[in-house]
């Protein structure tokens, strides 16, 4: 848009300050320089002035980048050289070159928000007149198509309805990050398709995310694409695993990722939609669909979504600190998780007894006669955690104790022993074996304030360098 030389005033009738300055416009129009009055809401405002324009579509206001009304702009040689907003008598007199302009008006009156910033309007204007940076292919639906059914028909959903990813919704989602929409964050298996910030935002919209969740989703996708995590294998395995997202740090509380009552269950938008967005990226961008490359025999409900936060406690080192990040950093830790197995112990009141319970239950991961196969996450509830805290046991001490309790003679676990063909190879006879590989047992604290229960989330039986290693990534933006 070429700017007309002279003065430009942007105003709306609804704004009392604009009404206050309306009588001055005639004086400005009689000055030496041309005056353009851009009116946002009422063609009768400043009617009769030759330079009055009704900006019904708000395109002019949008292109001028107006945030407040009234705004006074001076243009010289097609370039803006001065601008003020609201009524500041000195500014108006200086910019207009009329030293007595509005001499009887108060010195200062703040303006109002421009109509271009009304709720829902900004993204619409951005789409119509701006450079959105969006480059995804558009899909036009038929007049009779229901948008939600259209998403099912195109194979974009996990079996539940998704929020139709309209351009306006995607623009709003992208406001959640300063990153450019066309930034490629990696290649998503199994197709190894390049994934942009925009594609993540589209899938985050579909999953039901709020824009403030987008940095967490981006971090989760980036963590899933780290080679050690082995997302390709997790996707195509016949076993159960799917990516579990554990959130740590202040961001978890800021956006409301649940770490309390029903932390592993339903009912929290952040938990539900962040985990789901990651899965939709793998499905839609990566092409990972069950029955195709995803060959899971049974799968697990966590493959719809699986995300929770650690209930961090000052006395127990949180997971991200254990994994080398600052306590005030926010992180996502991705774990190739299967299902949730409850640990019920309502009688142990000493850490020694409760640790034995945990060890006994952890032996069942994969199979009681297998070792160093799947990793595991032990989710310790506050009630169980208190047993350790009151006895002065740190998380590290509990881990040491579990490692000790879970190391034992291979002979009892060999294939065929106990009348069970499954088991460890005969070559391990006579050796001591740990249940989990070093680093293969993670402990987090989560859950509601009542209940002497904890939970085990078993990992993919191909844990470790051959399959998947948990990956922690800082949430930046």
């Amino acid at each position, binding site marked *: 848009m070429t700017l007309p030389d002279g003065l430009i005033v942007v105003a709306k009738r609804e704004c009392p300050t604009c009404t206050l300055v309306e009588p001055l416009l005639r004086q400005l129009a009689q000055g030496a320089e041309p005056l353009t009055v851009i009116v946002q809401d009422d063609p009768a405002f400043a009617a009769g002035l030759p330079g009055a324009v009704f900006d019904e579509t708000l395109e002019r206001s949008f292109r001028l980048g107006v945030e407040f009304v009234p705004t006074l702009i001076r243009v010289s040689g097609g370039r803006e050289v001065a601008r003020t907003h609201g009524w500041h008598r000195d500014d108006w007199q200086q910019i207009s070159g009329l030293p007595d302009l509005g001499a009887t008006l108060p010195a200062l009156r703040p303006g109002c928000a421009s109509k271009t910033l009304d709720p829902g309007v900004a993204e619409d204007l951005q789409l119509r007149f701006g450079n959105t940076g969006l480059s995804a292919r558009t*899909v036009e639906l038929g007049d009779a198509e229901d*948008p939600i059914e259209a998403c099912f028909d195109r194979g974009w959903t996990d079996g539940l309805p998704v929020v139709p*990813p309209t351009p306006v919704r*995607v623009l709003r989602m992208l406001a959640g990050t300063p990153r450019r929409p066309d930034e490629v964050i990696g290649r998503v298996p199994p197709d190894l398709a390049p994934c942009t910030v925009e*594609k993540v935002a589209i899938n985050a919209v579909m999953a039901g995310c709020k824009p403030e969740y987008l940095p967490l989703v981006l971090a989760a996708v980036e963590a899933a694409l780290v080679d050690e995590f082995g997302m390709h294998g997790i996707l195509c395995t016949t076993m159960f695993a799917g990516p579990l997202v554990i959130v740590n740090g202040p961001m978890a509380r800021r956006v409301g990722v649940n770490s309390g009552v029903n932390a592993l269950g339903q009912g929290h938008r952040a938990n539900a939609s962040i985990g789901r967005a990651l899965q939709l990226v793998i499905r*839609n961008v990566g092409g990972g669909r069950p029955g195709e490359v995803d060959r899971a025999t049974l799968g697990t409900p966590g493959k719809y979504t699986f995300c929770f936060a650690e209930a961090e406690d000052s006395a127990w080192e949180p997971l991200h600190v254990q994994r080398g990040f600052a306590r005030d950093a926010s992180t996502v830790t991705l774990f190739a998780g299967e299902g949730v197995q409850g640990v019920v112990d309502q009688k142990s009141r000493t850490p020694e007894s409760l640790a034995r319970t945990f060890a006994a239950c952890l032996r069942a991961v994969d199979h009681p006669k297998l070792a160093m196969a799947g990793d595991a996450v032990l989710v310790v509830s506050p009630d169980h955690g208190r047993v350790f805290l009151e006895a002065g046991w740190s998380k590290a001490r509990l881990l040491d104790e579990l490692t000790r309790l879970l190391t034992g003679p291979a002979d009892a676990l060999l294939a065929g022993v106990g009348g069970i063909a499954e088991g460890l190879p005969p070559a391990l006879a006579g050796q001591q074996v740990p249940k989990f590989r070093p680093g293969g047992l993670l402990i987090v604290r989560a859950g509601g304030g009542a209940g002497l229960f904890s939970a085990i989330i078993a990992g993919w039986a191909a844990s470790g360098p051959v399959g998947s290693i948990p990956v922690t990534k800082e949430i930046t933006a």
Partner: protein
Amino acid sequence: MNPSLVLLDPTSERTPVARALALRPPSLQGLAVAVLDISKARGNVFLDRVAELLAAQGVTVNRYRKPTFTRPAPTALAQQIAAENQLVIEGLAD
């Protein structure tokens, strides 16, 4: 155009936007074919002949009939056809 009816593609855009037709089976051997009469006048004449030709090839043919051509098939009928057959043929016009 109603802007709410434009969506942004969430996929890697490796396949066309237009939905692909279901794959054609390489042969009818061992498949069950539903012949659905939508109750349009004389549709049965055409469908009887189609069924006869298919049966002559040894194809299993199951016959169904919609109560009226003016409405979509009842859900139970659609589900029955889907459960009992791999292919369906219907005659749309008089």
